């Protein structure tokens, strides 16, 4: 989320699209209701009339997988009716930037310019800016001792038009605004309805209502979740929401933003921590053979030329220092080469690809840390058969998950499976302490309440045991590249026992020298990430967490750290570190529910990111009742209810602090161009989101362009995918969660009370389709396609209505996916046996949310 949960209450219009937020993020209901009580309007766009929809003011049906058409139509509606927040668009976005002449989109083919058929990818530089001039990007710190030598990028000045109304400018047609306007002009209400299936009156009401937030003082928020992202163009789905929010001036304001309601308790943390193939903690790039084979290459390509991200070298080098400790020096590129580099075919190592690797016999060993991919990954039947080719499998979990017992699935023969499987009993979340990041980026401290039962252990202890044993083996026996292992710093001990607190120091960042040993003595914690350096004198595992655990008064006491604040602040005389927490006088400055003295919100305890955009160019808030930051011209300083997301002050040599005037504070100061982007080169598959049909679509053609699927769809060519055709499988299926259960159900089906309040797996079927198929409510049905067939009970309901798409009636069914063959209280079958294992080229997310099936009565 760019905002946070409580901030939803500040919205004038709320839009849930691709998120069944009341069911799957029930806490959002509290804040949505507060917004409604204050007079807000709530729109829910969903293929199903959900419990969420039942609370909304406006419900708009939509065919699964057509969100870009829906939002494209909204963009067209906004631009055509000039409902955008013009000043915002002119000041804070790249709408006035000029794009190269090489940019083009051909609706006939559905391809943008830059496509290489041979490489099967776009050359995204074809969508770049027209550069006016270049200047040297070197900064003073880059030449200090200890900083690796590299040539920084040149700072480019981009050609612009005066404003989006500068239509007489001969270059107007190359402006981002003109390109965008033309691109979405095809997305008329009629076309959108013909694609998405809703009626025009409803759609227009939705557009009109949401576009009303283009008024400067109005805020609109978009809540989305996996309904948006789990498509082979899921990243573009997310991007187009950003475009809408930027057009309406809803980004960076209270009650605005693009708000991903994330699905796992610490998936935000896992993403921050880069538990992903291509990332390094803190959203940096992991080294790869192709782009960043050396540290120098990394430093020359990854940081921006200007904007705050020019500091990325500091973050990477501090990260390497934390990784390798004193073994990382400027001479050995801070250990860069010990890190594994992503090979050329990196995408194959993401979740869908790993099962292909197992199937091919390449992947022989597998760890599952509290995850249950045998149930949660698409094409599950293929996956569990692929897993049978593993030599060994290690699962850390609370229960015997389906992943741990894949060999015991009803259709598997254990005697033929030679995988050695280890199940490590893990401690529950209240049987250990540590930090968790929520969707609103709040880092909060968990207190251990009870000892783990029996022999269960926290994951950190399991990790430690494993690492020490492996290190011991390499120490004793050598092996392949032992230095990559033996040079790793592993000193997270308190009194000789592994402990999350020293790890928290690492995440926060600390000063180092050669004698630093976290296991022996607490280091000097850094106050925040601005103190990180690229000279090897600071260490930090993840720069964005800088400042969450920074109280040097007692680094062993989490309770006096920012992460543990409870409407309290650290009591200190010097303003830096103190002994204890004291209550704050005002827990809600500005009355906009930022709660800055509760826990810590990364980055830098900022609650709403891009918050400079909440005020106009002169620093005057768009809405005086919802002030995040405001420029007080009389005092020449910034009023700060939130931590400013811009360089609001300058500290002189003598320590005096002066506030920077608004015109020197760009709103998107982290970006290379200091402006938010409508057209981008940052995505692999399109500079502007364009509608494509799901991999398995019920329609014959894409009404908006000549390509049915996105040209860059991943894994579609794999044999295991077994694409189904609309003639064979005419029904659109989608998968989703219900409020009573969670993910693969391993965790919730182990709670008898949850099995009691929702005991069965079901498929929701509209009354018309049920009648056509002779299915009565409660009947057992078989849902099938080329990949598998799954049995479950039908829940026949009025809440799913057939849609008319391109003149034909399209039926939709929805399946919950919380069941498998394991568990002693409640069992079912694996819905994901039906979902296609194809994915998005940017995020590699699978397309769970729109595929084809047929249904028959069992």
């Amino acid at each position, binding site marked *: 989320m760019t905002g946070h*949960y409580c901030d939803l209450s500040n919205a004038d219009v709320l839009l849930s699209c691709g998120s069944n937020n009341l069911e799957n*993020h*029930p*806490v959002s209901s509290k804040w949505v209701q507060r917004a409604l009580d204050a007079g807000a309007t709530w729109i829910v766009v969903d293929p199903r009339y959900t419990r969420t929809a039942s609370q909304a003011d406006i419900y708009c049906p939509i065919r699964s997988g057509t969100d870009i058409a829906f939002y494209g139509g909204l963009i067209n509606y906004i631009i055509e009716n000039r409902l955008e927040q013009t000043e915002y668009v002119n000041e804070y976005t790249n709408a006035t930037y000029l794009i190269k002449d090489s940019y083009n989109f051909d609706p006939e083919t559905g391809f943008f310019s830059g496509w290489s058929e041979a490489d099967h990818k776009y050359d995204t530089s074809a969508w770049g800016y027209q550069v006016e001039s270049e200047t040297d990007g070197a900064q003073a710190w880059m030449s200090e001792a200890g900083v690796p030598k590299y040539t920084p990028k040149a700072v480019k000045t981009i050609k612009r038009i005066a404003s989006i109304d500068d239509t007489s400018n001969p270059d107007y047609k190359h402006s981002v605004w003109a390109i965008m306007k033309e691109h979405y002009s095809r997305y008329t209400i009629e076309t959108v309805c013909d694609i998405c299936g809703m009626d025009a009156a409803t759609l227009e009401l939705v557009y009109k209502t949401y576009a009303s937030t283009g008024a400067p003082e109005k805020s609109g928020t978009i809540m989305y979740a996996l309904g948006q992202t789990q498509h082979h163009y899921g990243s573009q789905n997310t991007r187009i929401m950003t475009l809408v929010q930027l057009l309406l001036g809803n980004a960076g304001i209270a009650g605005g933003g693009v708000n991903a309601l*994330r*699905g796992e*308790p*610490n*998936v935000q943390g896992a993403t*921050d*921590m880069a*538990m992903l193939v291509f990332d390094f903690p803190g959203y940096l790039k992991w080294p790869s*053979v192709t782009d960043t084979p050396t540290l120098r290459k990394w430093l020359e390509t990854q940081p921006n030329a200007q904007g705050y991200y020019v500091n990325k070298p500091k973050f990477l080098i501090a990260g390497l220092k934390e990784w390798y400790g004193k073994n990382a020096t400027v001479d050995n590129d801070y250990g860069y*080469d*010990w*890190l594994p*580099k*992503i*090979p050329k075919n990196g995408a194959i*190592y993401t*979740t869908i690809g790993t099962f292909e*690797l197992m199937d091919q016999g390449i992947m022989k*060993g597998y*760890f*599952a*840390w509290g*995850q249950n991919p045998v149930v949660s990954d698409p094409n599950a039947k293929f996956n569990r058969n692929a897993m049978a080719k593993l030599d060994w499998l290690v699962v*850390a979990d609370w229960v015997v998950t389906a992943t741990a017992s894949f060999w*015991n699935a009803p259709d598997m023969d254990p005697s033929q*499976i030679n995988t*050695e499987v*280890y*199940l*490590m*009993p893990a401690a*529950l*979340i*209240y049987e250990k*302490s540590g930090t*968790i990041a*929520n969707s609103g980026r709040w880092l*909060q401290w968990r207190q251990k309440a009870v000892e783990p*039962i*029996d022999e*269960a252990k*926290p994951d950190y202890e399991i990790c430690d*045991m*494993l*690492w020490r044993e*492996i290190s011991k083996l390499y120490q004793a*026996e050598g092996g392949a590249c032992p230095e990559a*292992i033996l040079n790793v710093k592993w000193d997270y001990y308190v009194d000789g026992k592994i402990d*999350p607190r020293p790890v928290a120091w690492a995440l926060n960042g600390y000063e180092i020298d050669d004698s630093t040993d976290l296991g022996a003595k607490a280091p000097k914690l850094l106050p925040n990430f601005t103190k990180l350096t690229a000279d090897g004198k600071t260490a930090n595992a993840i720069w964005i967490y800088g400042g969450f655990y920074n109280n040097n008064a007692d680094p062993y006491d989490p309770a006096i750290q920012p992460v543990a604040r409870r409407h309290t602040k650290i009591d200190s005389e010097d303003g830096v570190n103190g002994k204890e927490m004291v209550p704050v006088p005002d*827990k809600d400055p500005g009355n906009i529910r930022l*709660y800055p003295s509760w826990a810590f919100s990364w980055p830098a305890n900022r609650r709403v990111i891009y918050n400079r955009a909440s005020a106009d160019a002169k620093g005057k808030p768009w809405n005086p009742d919802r002030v995040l930051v405001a420029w007080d011209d009389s005092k020449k300083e910034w009023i700060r209810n939130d931590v400013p997301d811009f360089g609001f002050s300058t500290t002189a040599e003598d320590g005096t602090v002066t506030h920077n005037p608004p015109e020197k504070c760009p709103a998107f100061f982290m970006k290379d161009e200091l402006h938010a982007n409508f057209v981008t080169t940052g995505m692999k598959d399109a500079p502007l989101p364009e509608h494509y049909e799901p991999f398995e679509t019920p329609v014959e053609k894409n009404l908006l362009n000549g390509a049915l699927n996105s040209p860059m769809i991943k894994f579609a060519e794999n044999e295991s995918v077994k694409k189904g055709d609309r003639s064979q499988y005419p029904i659109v299926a989608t998968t989703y969660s219900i*409020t009573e259960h969670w*993910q693969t159900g391993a965790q919730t089906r182990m*709670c008898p*009370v949850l099995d009691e309040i929702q005991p069965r797996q079901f498929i929701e079927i509209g009354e018309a389709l049920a009648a056509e198929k002779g299915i009565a409510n409660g009947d057992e049905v078989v849902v099938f396609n080329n990949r598998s067939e799954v049995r479950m009970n039908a829940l026949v309901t009025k809440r799913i209505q057939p849609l008319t798409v391109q003149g034909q009636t399209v039926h939709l069914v929805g399946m919950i996916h919380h069941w498998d063959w394991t568990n002693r209280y409640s069992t079912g079958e694996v819905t994901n046996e039906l979902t296609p294992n194809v994915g998005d080229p940017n995020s590699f997310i*699978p397309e769970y949310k729109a595929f084809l099936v047929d249904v028959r009565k069992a």
Partner: protein
Amino acid sequence: MELTRRGFFKATALAFAGSMAYELSTRSAAFAIDGDADDWKLVNTEEYTNICCYCSGGCGVICSVRDGELINLEGDPDHPINEGCLCPKGAAMFQLRNIVDDKTGEIIHNPERVTKPLVRRPGASEWEEISWDQMIQEIARHVKDTRDATFIDKEDGVTCNYTPAIGSMGGSQQNSEEEYLILKVMRSLGIVAIDNQARV
């Protein structure tokens, strides 16, 4: 039927004794509810704050603990996000550890949970128990064998130091400190196939 006097008394006595015995035998059932309001459920409990383990809302919870055992778990009323409220899953977090036995009404550890290390040997159809030490030694050996056999140190002349043969999945359930340790172990082994629940 000729019912003799003696026979009659015997029959009556048997019927009475039988039904009385039956009555008495059924009186021992334990009750889940003790209506006695005097014993406050949270008496002498210590409270620990924690964060819910389901969606990413980050709702605060309070664990009430007595004599080292979890007595109650509910929303943290001071928490600004959830203000003491919890959804059904969050409200059921107590049951991850302890449940009420539907036969006896007693609080028991959830029998579905795994609390001992287990191994499933190749070709076996059952789990067997194993010690932690033994399990860690075996896993470390597997990791080393697989890594050493498949390690690629250079690709097209570029140092790459990776193994394509091991994958690591997961991390969204752990605390951030643990995520870092898992990441550090896995990456340091040369694993590139690292993924978590972010996509599923």
